[in-house]
């Protein structure tokens, strides 16, 4: 995986972990991604640690690193965004310290989602 070539703006170590290889992109299973990040005013020690380690790797141009969670949910049948949002709000994120964003990559009009592009490379 190391040193693998990449093209354009997408570099990928591997494809979407949720989809078995060679399955069609349009199927009955709906996928939703919830990105959860600490609120900007909350200290992110993990991001800080990475930022501090970068100069040791010879990297100097990075001004900020924030580390959050990416949560991939797979639904049986139809995508229910209301439900996804409820899960995110109640369980996946703690509104006191975190914010979240929900994407439904499958449903994106252009189909040019990050993972889609990555997949096309293989």
């Amino acid at each position, binding site marked *: 995986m190391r040193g693998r070539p990449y093209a354009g703006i997408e570099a990928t170590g591997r494809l979407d972990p949720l989809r078995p290889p060679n399955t069609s992109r349009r199927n009955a299973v709906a996928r939703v991604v919830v990105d959860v990040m600490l609120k900007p*005013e909350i*200290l992110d*020690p993990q991001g800080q640690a990475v930022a501090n380690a970068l100069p040791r790797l010879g990297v100097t141009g990075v001004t900020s690193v924030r580390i959050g969670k990416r949560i991939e949910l797979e639904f049986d049948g139809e995508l229910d965004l209301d439900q996804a949002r409820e899960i995110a709000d109640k*369980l*996946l994120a*703690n509104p*006191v*310290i975190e914010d979240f964003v929900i994407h439904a990559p499958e449903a994106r009009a252009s189909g040019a989602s990050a993972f889609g592009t990555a997949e096309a490379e293989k």
Partner: protein
Amino acid sequence: MTRVGVVTFPGSLDDRDALRAVRLAGGEGVALWHDDPDLQGVEAVILPGGFSYGDYLRCGAIARFAPVMESIVKAAGDGMPVLGICNGFQILCEAHLLPGGLTRNHHLHFRNRDQWLRVESVTTAWTGRFDAGQNILIPLKSGEGSYVADEKTLDLLESSGRIVARYVPGKGLAEGDHNPNGSLRDIAGITNEAGNVVGLMPHPEHAVEALTGPSVDGLGFFTSVLSALSGKVSA
């Protein structure tokens, strides 16, 4: 004898220690099960330390939805004393019984050490037997113990005397290293407005016997609640 419940969630670790502490303080420990909303007539509840649900996602995030928590949230609203220790504190924050939240230690490591605290609020159900300003030594052991809240909440906690304990310097702690995890304003424990719900990051139940703890200072939390409850009965 006063019955004090201790909840076991999947992944609770210090539940038997909390039961022992209740017993040593002169109460009757009652084991409560996460999946059973029945509080079995206890007069106070302890949410013990551990890694409920593996601490996956966020500490305490999943435990908050256990059936027993519904009863506890309700009872707490009616004034029942509730103490959350470490993971229990995290669960109380997740359940919004206490404000703010607990995040990753600023140095990113789990840390176990004997920690000095100053008890600041002695009007809660769990601290009545301490002297205000008393310094105590009890074990701390956690990876996500850094207390955070917005400035407004922190100011409110300060001004209303709801900071129960703070990390302070003391023998055995390196200079400048009294705050073990980056908690804002050195907060080690807080209480709700009514003073019946207390969350505490360090572990008083590990400081109840000279043989196994760094002190017996922790016993005060358990004797306090027993006094508070018996006082209530006689009043």
